[in-house]
């Protein structure tokens, strides 16, 4: 008697049906053959790939960065592209899950045949693919993560370059400010338990700002902030913390403020790492929790943060002006409201275009890596600090200025005149940086000559 449940058909039937299924799968997902010697580069096109959370709990705010990058590339294409080649950006949603990041990287590399990865977002997700990307020699440009472990040893990851200043550099600079201005307060922290959060704690500790686990240090698992951070805020409140540092993404900062507001906890000062302090994301998330814009602006007002670039609210800044116009004219994303995320996306687009121009007409993967390593000074951007790229480090922006959000949700310099501070990702001192940013050209295109 045959076993009806599982094996009632003959092996031949099993195999023939399975073969049809596999053939169908292949037919519908077949990859077109390409003959170009450098993948992703043809006479008319340069194909770039990007991974980011476009959906899921970590996506708010960050899902605008790719649209801003694409808008800048569309603007470059409208001006003739890079040596006659138009730039195409292919993006994949990894929902901030590393298992999916592996699959989407494979699709970008093997199916879309990208020339380089650019501006990918997420520390823990990028860890899952960085080794494979480097092993293949694919340029991994301007990653939107400040995790120093990606950049400080170019022998380990020779093709990866940062797109943010490292969390350690930023935390050391904020730590210096905390030591000098809040020595009499009880300083606590809420941070996500990944490299982002731990780098923040490490940088603050280097500056002499330390915390007691389960008392003045509250933690959460990245991605769980959607359900609120009530317990973490209650812990800080119970331990009389009156200065709260946030080492987490924007949605987590918003969740922390909402939870504090809910339990009646009003710390004297919030201090937030720059990637977590975007005003639009903050207000959008709080809006979804029923807090109107006017109230959320009030909750954000007075928050201290840092930035390597001008604030998006600085209407007179020449980069802000140029990028804002390009955003208005070219951004086709569902949410093109001007903010930190859009500014960062535009800046990565500008930086990428600059590197592609600098690498020359005969674009190759080793060529662009060598160019970036050797020509950091020529790669200008909107940032108020220079790029640190060299053969010894692939860290991006080497300095930050400290600001405070005003009632109109604009980050304004905390000093009367803006001071930019610099340090390294190790134990070096924090010192003032003297740097004059190269001006943007009238056509808003980078000049690398």
């Amino acid at each position, binding site marked *: 008697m045959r076993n009806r449940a*599982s*094996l009632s058909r003959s092996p031949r039937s099993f195999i023939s049906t399975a073969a049809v299924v596999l053939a169908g799968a292949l037919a519908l997902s077949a990859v077109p053959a390409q003959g170009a010697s450098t993948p992703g580069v043809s006479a008319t096109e340069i194909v770039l790939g990007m991974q980011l959370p476009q959906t899921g709990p970590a996506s708010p705010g960050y899902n605008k960065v790719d649209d801003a990058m694409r808008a800048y590339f569309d603007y470059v294409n409208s001006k003739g592209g890079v040596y006659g080649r138009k730039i195409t950006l292919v993006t994949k949603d990894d929902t901030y899950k590393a298992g999916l990041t592996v699959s989407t990287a494979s699709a970008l590399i093997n199916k879309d045949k990208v020339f380089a990865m650019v501006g990918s977002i997420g520390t823990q997700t990028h860890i899952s693919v960085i080794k494979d990307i480097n092993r293949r020699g694919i340029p991994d440009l301007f990653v939107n993560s400040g995790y120093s472990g990606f950049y400080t040893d170019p022998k380990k990851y020779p093709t990866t370059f940062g797109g943010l200043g490292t969390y350690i550099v930023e935390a050391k600079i904020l730590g210096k400010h905390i030591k000098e201005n809040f020595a009499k307060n009880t300083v606590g922290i809420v941070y996500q338990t*990944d490299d982002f959060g731990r780098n923040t704690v490490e940088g603050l500790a280097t500056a002499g700002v330390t915390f007691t686990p389960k008392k003045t240090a509250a*933690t959460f*698992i990245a991605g769980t902030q959607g359900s609120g951070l009530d317990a973490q805020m209650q812990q800080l409140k119970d331990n009389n913390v009156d200065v709260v540092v946030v080492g987490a993404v924007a949605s987590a900062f918003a969740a922390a403020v909402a939870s504090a507001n809910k339990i009646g906890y009003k710390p004297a000062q919030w201090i937030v790492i720059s990637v977590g302090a975007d005003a639009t994301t903050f207000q959008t998330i709080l809006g979804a929790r029923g807090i109107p814009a006017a109230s959320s602006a009030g909750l954000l007002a007075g928050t201290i943060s840092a930035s390597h670039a001008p604030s998006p609210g600085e209407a007179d800044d020449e980069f802000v002006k140029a990028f804002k116009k390009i955003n208005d004219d070219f951004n086709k994303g569902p949410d093109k409201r001007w903010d930190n995320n859009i500014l960062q996306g535009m800046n990565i687009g500008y930086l990428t275009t600059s590197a592609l121009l600098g690498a020359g007409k005969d674009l190759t993967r080793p060529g662009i890596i060598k160019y970036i390593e050797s020509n950091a000074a020529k790669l200008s951007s909107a940032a108020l600090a220079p790029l640190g790229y060299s053969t010894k480090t692939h860290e991006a922006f080497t300095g930050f200025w400290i600001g405070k959000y005003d009632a109109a949700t604009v980050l304004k310099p905390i000093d009367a005149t803006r001071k930019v501070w610099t340090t390294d990702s190790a134990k070096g001192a924090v010192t003032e940086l003297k740097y004059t940013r190269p001006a943007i050209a009238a056509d808003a295109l980078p000049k690398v000559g």
Partner: protein
Amino acid sequence: MRAVSKAKNRSIARKSLRRTIFFVILILLAGSTFEPYNQAQLALVLILFIGVLSVTLLTGISGQLSLGQGALMAVGGYCMALLMTNQGYSLWMAIPLAMVGSALAGLLLGISAARLSGPYLAGTTLVIALAIPTLANRFMSVLKGDEGLPVDVGYPPVWFTNLFGEPSYEEWQLYVALPFAAIALFFASNILLSRTGRMWRAIRDHETAASLSGVNFSRQKIFVFVVSATFAGLSGALYGLRGLVGPSVYPVSLSLLLLTAAVLGGIRSIFGAFIGTVIVVFLPDWIDAILHSFELSEQVSNFLPALVSSLLLILTVVINPAGVAGTHLHKHKHK
């Protein structure tokens, strides 16, 4: 009587072996003609096929509903990654040991779940799946928290490249997954055809009747958990070898993906497990291929695979509960 039984066992083993050999040849033929992207997809099919088999055995055959197979995959993944990174074991040593580790986890789970059934069992297994990120952060020094343990299949050995030439990385991933998938298929096939499989089905259909027929259902329920966990652990170890073992690699949605694949293909069938896995792995590509020319916004296109698989799941449950494999079975029966 004993001689008849031995002959029958040999016949079952031969049948399973034939099936496995055909399966291996099919995958090798497909893999050799595929582009690297599809080779990686096929490797993922093989890896998840083993995980879906664990659901087939546990839920489809023995009737124990688990929503936490992803957690057992994580156990396999972490065991393998720790053995490779801390002890320097090769993956060929680490994977079998990881299977032992997940079998032990399955034993503990089986003992605690032996008295549970239905929604209580589903709830218990779901909690275990939810606990993985917490455990990874609780034992930070060993499990490395959210960033996890980076591992991969590495490069093929010299004898392999001398014999077969230099494979692409994706092809090598496929060749690493294939022998394990073949072994899993052979054992699953053997179990389902054997007396053990019949006992599990008897427990699923009516515990009291099975008990009256001499089946020790408590022992068998624990045993099915151990076997299922071993399959899940193997799948999880191979899944981690794609680049990383960490909490974000084994989310709760992974458990639900395995269950979806099993239901779509046919939860009581090995063939259904394979078809279901092919559907869930290739579905985003099919949707992309079909809707490519429509230029849908990311807001729509990013949610379509989940939406379509949910619709398929509902339609399967309502219209054709036996899944794709069951449809074929139905046609055969009425010929």
